[in-house]
């Protein structure tokens, strides 16, 4: 076998990409554990459909739109840095962060509305699942925002390894996909 000069290639994948996908695999299991439990309880429980009607579907729709758009902006940011266009990167990354904050803002509005209406996590098992799943998801959105802000601010660090934008993007898209399943599970079905 020819002795390569550089390391043993692994399908041409960089460590960062393999690493983030393994992390996303464990996250799929975490949210998967929640969603599997929710689904089987939802099929067996009575009264959950009625409880679900108290959710604010409009905020749910708006939040879904926000996250879908933020997926667009972060992938455009990645395209920008791949073209070497710094300004476009900063603009799109900033937009992604704003959209993330908007999502959390609407979440706070939604939660306070429901709490004031008397639906707290201890009201019933549906509400326990609702608050736990959307809360955990919101924490992940917050984590993504922090990473994006760090990327936006530390120009020097970012320029040295542009694939960090790609990794942050992959995480952000994953959090968006989790919401793509949470939204119908909680609000629509």
């Amino acid at each position, binding site marked *: 076998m020819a002795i390569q000069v550089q390391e043993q290639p692994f399908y041409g994948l960089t460590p960062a990409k393999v690493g983030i996908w393994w992390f996303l695999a464990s996250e799929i299991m975490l949210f*998967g554990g929640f969603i599997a439990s929710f689904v089987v309880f939802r099929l067996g429980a009575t009264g959950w459909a009625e409880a679900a009607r108290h959710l604010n579907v409009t905020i749910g729709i708006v939040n879904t739109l926000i996250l*879908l758009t933020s*997926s667009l902006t972060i*992938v455009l940011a990645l395209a920008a840095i791949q073209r070497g266009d710094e300004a476009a990167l900063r603009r799109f990354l900033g937009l992604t962060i704003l959209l993330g904050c908007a999502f959390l803002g609407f979440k706070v509005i939604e939660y306070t509305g429901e709490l004031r209406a008397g639906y707290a996590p201890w009201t019933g098992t549906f509400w326990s699942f609702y608050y736990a799943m959307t809360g955990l998801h919101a924490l992940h959105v917050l984590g993504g925002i922090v990473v994006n802000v760090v990327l936006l601010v530390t120009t020097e660090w970012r320029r040295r390894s542009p694939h960090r934008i790609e990794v942050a993007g992959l995480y952000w898209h994953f959090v968006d996909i989790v919401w793509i399943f949470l939204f*119908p599970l909680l609000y629509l079905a």
Partner: protein
Amino acid sequence: MTTHAPRSNYVAIWVWLVLLMAAGVAASFLPGARALAVTAIFATAVAKALLVALHYMHLKLEPWVIYAIALIPVTLVAILALTLLPDFSFHH
């Protein structure tokens, strides 16, 4: 750094995502058999997830290894959900 393979048109994908969401919401108001509406809703959700994964996460350009890393946990979650069904969905 992904190579400059044929770039999927991101904005077009975004439009599809919004349309699919709208379709999902509309499906939730469908009269008639609830099961039909639910399947429609989740079909749009799966479609949106695939669009984001394939185009925005560039899964289309990745070798099979990345697909494996992503699909194995999904199957495990399915196994877990199916096993929990008899205990929590059909009991008393």
